[in-house]
């Protein structure tokens, strides 16, 4: 029988040790992690609201942890404002991911009376090293937590990293937490929007516009290169992706109503496509926007094709049945798997910008572009080159057989009103 903390219903210190012992005994082949979480400046909460107020915060937090962690770890309250998470089958990167989730859970607002608190935590991680006993493991996690606290709190430190201040990993974790909270703020305050970049056919016609997500909070722009990876790590990408499905489809509908038959290409992440709910979400967006489905295109990241599960296959098939078209983004650099290419019912292949920037000088790159273009054509696809900025690049690409061009040379990504203006000046109806 485990020993339980009466305030929170979580394991208490003794229960934590018992569980860690059990894990240690079983961990001969599987590493497990201890994550030590300590609230920053909790004393001030107790001083301001008294101990009953502090207890409320602890109870609330315990509940949040339990909901967020949902069976992935054993949770213990070590007393005061300290929690320990024992995570089975967990390596360092999984532990860091979980620690970030815990940090964002702590960072949700807490309401006490009329006041709203925005707590932070210092978090220490230790991975069981197979030799040590459970007490030694917990001590390492505790020390790592104190190292995080010494850096000013609101951060994550992995045991073994403590003596080296300012390491990139640590700074990054902190920055990621701050980006994640900015993204949450953007989702609640309408800080997201889509910008659109045209894709131009060789004859000058507009083939489509790609919808690119932008995030702005308190007047500050967050670069997609920063917030998209964080959104992918934290799972927020699904919500962002669903939001852009409807906005993108709505934009296609507005273009349709304005008399333009221009497709809107919407980026879809791997996390969305591996979900069995993707088909319903896509249909919901099509239904709400009432757009002709052929005016919507889904851009799939090439990394999706490393491993195409049955769910992904079904989602792609359903998307095609719904009438939307598919394109493969960033082709040729990452996880290109030609064997999978034949199984993907995409109509468009977008060559990665890495091939473009070295043109026309790099003859070998040009040969690869020519071969990929031919391959795309053989598979019945339109081939697009991304990231084109110079006339010489475009000449070389068109000469290699590429069908369409996307890049600053023609237009930068632009907000909706600028897009309409731009379309007008080109008189492209």
């Amino acid at each position, binding site marked *: 029988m485990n020993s339980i903390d009466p305030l929170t219903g979580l394991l208490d210190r003794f229960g934590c040790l018992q569980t860690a012992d059990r894990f240690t005994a079983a961990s001969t082949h599987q590493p497990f992690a201890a994550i030590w979480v300590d609230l920053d400046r909790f004393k001030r909460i107790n001083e301001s609201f008294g101990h009953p107020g502090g207890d409320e915060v602890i109870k*609330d937090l315990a*509940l*949040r942890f339990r*909901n*967020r962690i*949902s*069976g992935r770890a054993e949770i213990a309250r070590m007393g005061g404002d300290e929690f320990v998470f024992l995570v089975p089958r967990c390596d360092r990167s999984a532990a860091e991911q979980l620690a970030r989730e815990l940090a964002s859970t702590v960072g949700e607002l807490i*309401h006490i009376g009329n006041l709203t608190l925005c707590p932070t935590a210092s978090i220490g991680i230790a991975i069981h090293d197979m030799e040590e006993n459970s007490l030694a493991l917990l001590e390492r996690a505790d020390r790592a937590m104190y190292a995080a606290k010494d850096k000013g709190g609101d951060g994550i430190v992995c045991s073994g990293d403590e003596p080296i201040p300012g390491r990139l990993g640590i700074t990054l974790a902190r920055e990621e937490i701050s980006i994640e909270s900015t993204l*949450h703020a953007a*989702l*609640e*305050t*309408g800080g997201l929007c889509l910008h659109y970049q045209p894709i131009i056919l060789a004859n000058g016609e507009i083939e489509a516009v790609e919808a690119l997500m932008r995030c702005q909070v308190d007047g500050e722009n967050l670069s997609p290169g920063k917030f998209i990876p964080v959104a992918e790590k934290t799972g927020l990408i699904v*919500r962002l992706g*669903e*939001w852009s*499905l*409807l*906005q993108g489809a*709505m934009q296609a*509908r*507005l273009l349709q*109503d*304005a*008399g333009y038959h221009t497709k809107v290409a919407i980026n879809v992440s791997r996390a969305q496509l591996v979900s069995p*709910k993707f*088909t*319903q*979400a896509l*249909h*919901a*967006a099509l*239904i*709400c*926007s*009432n757009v002709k489905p052929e005016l919507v295109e889904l851009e799939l990241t090439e990394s999706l094709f490393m491993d195409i599960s049955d769910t992904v296959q079904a989602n792609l098939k*359903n998307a095609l049945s*719904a009438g939307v078209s598919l394109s493969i983004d960033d082709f040729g650099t990452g996880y290109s798997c030609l064997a999978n290419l034949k199984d993907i019912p995409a109509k468009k292949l977008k060559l990665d910008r890495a091939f473009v920037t070295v043109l026309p000088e790099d003859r070998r790159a040009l040969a690869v572009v020519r071969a990929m273009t031919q391959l795309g054509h053989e598979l019945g696809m339109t081939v697009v080159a991304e990231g084109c900025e110079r006339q010489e690049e475009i000449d070389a690409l068109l000469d290699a057989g590429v069908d369409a061009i996307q890049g600053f040379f023609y237009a930068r990504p632009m907000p*909706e*009103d600028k*897009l*309409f*203006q731009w*379309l*007008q000046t080109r008189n492209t109806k």
Partner: protein
Amino acid sequence: MNDAMPDSTLSEVDNLLERSILDVGIPPCPLILDRFITEARRDEPDFSRLASIIGSDVGLSAGLIKTANSPFFGMRQRVRSVNEALAILGLKTASRAVAGLILRKAFPNVPNLERFWDASARIAHLSGWLAQHFDIRGLRAEDTYTFGLFRDCGIPVLLGRFPQYEKVLAEANNDAVRSFIAVEEAALPTNHAMVGCILAQSWWLPEEICLAIRNHHDLVALESLGSSLPMQSRRLIATAQLAEHIVQRESGLSLTQEWTKLGSACLKILELDEAQLEALYIEAAAIAAAVE
């Protein structure tokens, strides 16, 4: 082209605009309509505020732009934004059309919608009262009100798009075994909870409300320990479900099987037992009846 137009032209514009807004098929967010009507009823309405209210709604915005771009106006240049659409139509014209639609409860153009919004309003009102009455952990009355109002906003959208949906809806309401969503998905490629969630996201509603809309018929998400559904969303779902149960019990109308399927999970979330529920029936009846 603005409010200096002759009356006959104005009424034609009114009709056109109404039709466009309805045709876009996204029911405007009821809260936005509330804000709109509050502003429009002032002695001296603030027109820039009215414009921004209309502009903050996907359905209304799309309707305005569609109208301004219709051949009726024969504009050479296409309208690019809500503000431009308003400049062409005139804010007064646009406001009058929107207000007209609100008064006729015409969103969207499908049968029985009035009853639908009425039911939503009752459930929303009673949910708000329940949240206050029980002081449910961390729930704010206005959030439970909002959730109650929007919980089923996917239904009118689907009614507007699929002629057979009314039948599906009846079947889902009567099915005591399969989940509501399962019945919908047997007939359609999506379900009203997903449609509602996507809409709510586009209205920038808070995450826990969006998730509650998405999962409000999902027993597993409601009661399983491993569920990733935030507790706050579960409380919203449970409160509105209890409100619906009380409203249906009182009115004897629109009976569904949801309480049979989800009731005990909801009571558990709200930490209520049967005896407390009996007492609540009596107390809440008056509140439920008061919403007209």
